[in-house]
């Protein structure tokens, strides 16, 4: 290497560092990859919120669906609720997991605000939440027709996030898993 070219080494290092740091600015340090991506839905047997049945993981498998973790104590869930209702009205299949909540309050919430869920699982102790790796509501899991978790979204689902990212994920659920 000629000594002239060597003079550019510090500049090169600086540019490299600047690119790395700049990329760091746009990363979300709160974002956590789910450990359950491409794994089957964990097994459970829990009561349904609005009927007397007991629901198990097998009841949720069969069609591509959203699994939405919600609770009445969760303010963001209240924000998200009308949009979930719109999604459900447009034909998106959504199951609810009523996470560490009071069932009476949860039922009256669905009665007064509308029920976007085909069924809600009562996870009063948060055991299913633990198996899913839930660390706060709202969280939404995307499961395909074989009951395999394909995606996890943490936080509120709104118009912008749905059309920007999640709709593509949901549409991909309908295509066979091995493609």
């Amino acid at each position, binding site marked *: 290497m000629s000594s002239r070219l060597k003079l550019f080494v510090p500049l090169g290092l600086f540019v490299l560092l600047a690119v790395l740091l700049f990329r760091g600015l746009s990363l979300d340090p709160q974002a*956590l990859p789910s450990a359950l991506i491409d794994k089957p839905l964990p097994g459970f047997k829990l009561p349904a919120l609005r009927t007397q049945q007991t629901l198990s993981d097998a009841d949720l498998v069969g069609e591509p669906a959203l699994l939405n973790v919600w609770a009445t104590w969760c303010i963001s869930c209240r924000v998200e609720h009308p949009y979930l209702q719109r999604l459900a009205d447009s034909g998106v299949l959504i199951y609810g997991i009523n996470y560490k909540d009071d069932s009476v309050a949860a039922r009256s919430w669905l009665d007064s605000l509308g029920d976007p869920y085909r069924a809600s699982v009562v996870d009063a102790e*948060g055991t299913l939440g*633990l198996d899913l790796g839930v660390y706060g509501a709202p969280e939404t899991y995307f499961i395909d027709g074989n009951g395999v978790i394909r995606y996890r979204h943490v936080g509120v689902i709104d118009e912008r996030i749905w059309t920007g990212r999640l709709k593509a994920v949901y549409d991909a659920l309908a295509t066979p898993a091995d493609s």
Partner: protein
Amino acid sequence: MLVNSFKKSLQLIALVLGFGGSLCALAVIETYEFSTPQLEVRYRALSQELRCPKCQNQNIADSNAPISQDLRALLYEKLEEGASDEAILEDMVARYGEFVRYRPAAQGAALWLWLAPALMLGAGFLLLIVLLRRGKGVSKASEGALTQEERARLDQMINDKADNS
């Protein structure tokens, strides 16, 4: 009148302090009864090594987030069931990913983190050796640069200088 208002403010201060005290008491983390002291030692160690997924910069022993409480309860159950440390950690990682460990396993992307100090130290030494070698080469070249003729001239110059003084 003045005394009265002074009394009132004292009462207010006592009330505020009282509230503060009771809030602190509420923040105390629940305790578990272990069947053996060894289990408690392992519980302490593991709860300090597991990271709270919600608060992210606290371990589950420090954090009072609901998820940390759940994880502590799970940890307690597993310990009492007789699970090994490795099995418990594996179980947590299966749920929350390698993220929940403050000492991630040396594999995948984390392997680079573990190796980076050694690699950088090695690279530094290599650079040092190269630079030292090069420096030696230069000084040797300049040492042998004086020819017989030049040496004679140098000697003469030194002698001249000595004579003049």
